[in-house]
């Protein structure tokens, strides 16, 4: 067994897991954080996207031991009990998700983008979402929501979408 200590959503957590355990399995099965989804399990769909030291990665393609000592942010770390994160709020207001399976990954990809580029072009947003497959809503509303969230995060006045 391997001992793994990760800072997940601001909290230090430890688990003892078989060495071949992926970061995704560690999050879901040991820490009960099921926001990151098991989709394709080979890095194509992006449903398992989490941020490791601020960078978006497929948690299915990283071993838990490779995340030892690092900061991991999952979708559970974004909202507080009384407030959604501005990206989550924008997705809700824009109806940018239907079934929601891709949502945690998409929102974390968007967060990584906005942390680095607070005012992205729509092409930059498309590039940031290229590794997140959505098969129901489509991307148009997501792009609008991310642009909206970007304005809100920059502190610019925003109107609620119609």
């Amino acid at each position, binding site marked *: 067994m391997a001992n793994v200590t990760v800072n997940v959503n601001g909290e230090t957590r430890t688990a003892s897991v078989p060495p*071949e355990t992926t970061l995704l399995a560690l999050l879901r099965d040991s820490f009960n954080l099921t926001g990151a989804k098991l989709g394709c399990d080979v*890095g194509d769909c992006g449903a398992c996207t989490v941020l490791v030291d601020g960078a978006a*990665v497929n948690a299915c393609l990283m071993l838990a031991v490779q995340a030892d000592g690092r900061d991991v942010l999952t979708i559970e770390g974004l909202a507080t009990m009384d407030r959604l994160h501005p990206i989550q709020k924008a997705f809700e207001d824009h109806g940018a998700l239907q079934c929601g399976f891709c949502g945690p990954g998409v929102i974390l*990809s968007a967060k990584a983008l906005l942390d680095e580029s607070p005012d992205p072009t729509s092409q930059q947003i498309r590039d940031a979402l290229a590794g997140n497959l959505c098969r129901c809503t489509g991307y148009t509303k997501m792009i609008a929501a991310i642009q909206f969230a970007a304005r809100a995060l920059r502190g610019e006045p925003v109107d609620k979408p119609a």
Partner: protein
Amino acid sequence: MRAFEVVAARDSRHAVALLAEHAPSVKVLAGGTDLLVELKSSSHVPAVIIDISRARDLKTIAITDEGLSIGALVTHAEIMRSPIIGEMFPALVDAAHTIGAVQTRNLGTLGGNLVTGVPSMDSGPTLIALDARITIVGPAGRRQMPLAEFFLGPRKTVLKPDELLAEVVIPKENLGKPTQFLKFGLRRGQALALVNVAASLWVERGQVCVRPRIALGAVAPTVIRALKAEAYLEGRTITPEAMAEAGRISVGEAKPITDFRASAEYRRDLIAVLTKRALEGAYARALAKPVEA
């Protein structure tokens, strides 16, 4: 995934020692974007995995006496962000940008891309068009060779099981050489190349092509040079017709296959068009930033 042990290597020397210690059922893990996919579907997994992802000495990007050195563990995202690479070789940034998607580029490394050795690898053509050399470290010490000689066939390289790929070096004489990389996939993201091409050249007296290199990927068992097309261009005045002719000559040097992504015929058309465009792009870069060879 089947069970295996994981041992973390502190640096390349430690990794080489660990490879020897755990031979023969041992394998190196870098970004894991190829290896973990492979291990998940495989019934034969090595007993021990040496995790080199924290070996800092393999992560540097620096100008040395030999040229531009890029450590094997440098990720595609780090290549895209490197000011040195962006300034000298925008084509390497373009090539890195075409790999997978953000998540893949944040984990996937240059070394892993080369060692996996698939013919469609997107880092190969640009580096081969720049006469890149590689450094391998192993129990017997270091050895160097041209990257073009590293590949033996699909997923086959000269790397021995107890060796590590340590760095890629673009030789000093090619620093800043005008280069263009183009990839044609079926989508802009998450798509392997049907064909990828890199072309590099120096321009003398405003229009004479000197030391052209053309490297083609996904159209032969390994990345190949289009040597006849290069010979045709050497010393020739660069014109749109000459670049188109070089594209047509390149087609004859490749052996594309038909698979579920595209037919061999379609790939041949792509070779001619992409080679011509890559040459045009390299030439445009040469004119925009003239450096005499």
